[in-house]
């Protein structure tokens, strides 16, 4: 009897723990315009055009104002229960992991298995990007600071909200003081928008993007126009999304026989068993349906974070 009660209590605790929505990770990065204006960029030739690419590492190592701004933002977000992911630390960890992976070998002398895609995926990642920029304007002896903080969903690229403004002109205060003032004064407005975004997510589901692709010359011999009864495979997927998204909310801006892109897909934050799900879990549910009769389509689900998933059909 005691064991039964204990197991029941454990199951209840597990259910409560799992009933929390997956918490997005937030990271502050300096905006492209700030990096370029302050000389923190590298020039890269891309198809004959010179492109300026922000050099975040250099900016974080050399600009004290940026470090101060990130520290202040982190302080204010931690106060609201949302500590930020540190970009500087993330870049250091990546280097460390890369170094460790390069030096890791088995006793037989084999290196770690890594596909080129794994290599590309090894970048600093987060779910919501907080893009920060500021500029100091001089008006005679006075100077004032213009400040922009914009939140963007890393998967859907949608703006979550922004806080911006120009502070009162000052004769004496230095840039760091003006920057700190601007951050403190604007943070509540930014957090209001962030909260509205989270509340919307909890009401009408998490917005994700889902890409369906097909392996060329796959063993299953299928593409998105393969027919199952009266429906093509793309219709089967559409019907499944219609039933499994919140209020049937999704759009398909592009589809061909090989690729279908679904955007603004509103997925429930919990599955039918009350467990928190993200884009990966949602994509796996679809892949499981396609794997069964009458479709029998093997697929590969690629994890891209909380808000983006890719299913490649035809093979594992």
């Amino acid at each position, binding site marked *: 009897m005691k064991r039964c009660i204990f197991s029941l209590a454990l199951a209840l605790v597990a259910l409560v723990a799992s009933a*929390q929505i997956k918490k997005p990770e937030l990271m502050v990065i300096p905006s492209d315009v700030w990096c370029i204006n302050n000389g923190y960029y590298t020039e890269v030739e891309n198809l004959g055009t010179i492109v300026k690419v922000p050099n975040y590492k250099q900016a974080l190592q050399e600009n004290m104002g940026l470090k101060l701004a990130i520290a202040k933002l982190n302080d*204010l977000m931690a106060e609201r229960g949302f500590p930020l992911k540190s970009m500087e630390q993330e870049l250091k960890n990546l280097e460390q992991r890369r170094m460790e992976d390069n030096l890791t070998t088995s006793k037989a002398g084999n290196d770690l298995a890594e596909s080129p895609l794994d290599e590309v995926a090894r970048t600093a990642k987060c779910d919501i990007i907080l893009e920060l920029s500021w500029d100091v304007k001089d008006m005679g002896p006075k100077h*004032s600071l213009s400040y922009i903080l914009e939140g963007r969903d890393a998967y859907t690229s949608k703006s979550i909200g922004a806080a911006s403004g120009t502070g*009162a002109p000052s004769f004496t205060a230095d840039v760091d003081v003006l920057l700190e003032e601007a951050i*403190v*004064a604007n943070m509540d407005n930014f957090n209001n928008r962030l909260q*509205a975004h989270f509340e919307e997510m909890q009401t009408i589901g998490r917005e994700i993007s889902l890409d369906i692709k097909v392996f060329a010359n796959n063993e299953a011999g299928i593409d998105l126009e393969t027919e199952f009864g009266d429906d093509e495979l793309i219709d089967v997927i559409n019907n499944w999304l219609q039933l499994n998204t919140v209020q049937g909310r999704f759009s398909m801006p592009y589809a061909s026989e090989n690729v279908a892109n679904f955007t603004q897909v509103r997925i429930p934050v919990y599955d039918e068993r009350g467990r928190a799900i993200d884009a990966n879990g949602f994509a796996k549910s679809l892949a499981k349906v396609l794997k069964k009769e009458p479709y029998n389509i093997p697929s590969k689900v690629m994890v891209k974070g909380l808000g983006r998933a890719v299913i490649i059909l035809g093979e594992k």
Partner: protein
Amino acid sequence: MKKILFSLLAFVLCLPASAGLRQKQANRDTDQFRYEIECAGNAIQGTYLVKVWSYSKKASVAENQCRKNAVHGVIFKGYGGGQGCVSQRPMASNPGAETQFEEYFKSFFADGGEFQKYASIMSGTTETVKVGKEYKVGVVVSVRKDDLRKALEAAGVIRGLNSGF
């Protein structure tokens, strides 16, 4: 002599009653948003600096009411910006919060209520203007908004940024 004594006694008895009536009127004015709130400059972290204009037939009642109005304004009204000041939205994003949590706010804004913990008057900032038969009194008030938010979150009036996660 008796008549004089009686009049004096009646006058003394009426004094607190009339002060109480004025206070009640001032409270009703707050309920009806009869006050003005504006930004008074950049404040230190965790606080808002606001200037509140309150109305009463007695200047001292209006001045006292400013603290209550400042907290009320930060929760339900928000304020505009300009001249280097940043505008702020009301802390309670739900417009029906005051009615929904009527009992809570009744005791919160009662005379000597919890609101006092979150507002302090900046000394030497009082401005008094006579408008018709009453006074319009402006005072700069520092509102401890971070502590206020935490109290409202704990009471379930507003949701925390990380609630649900």
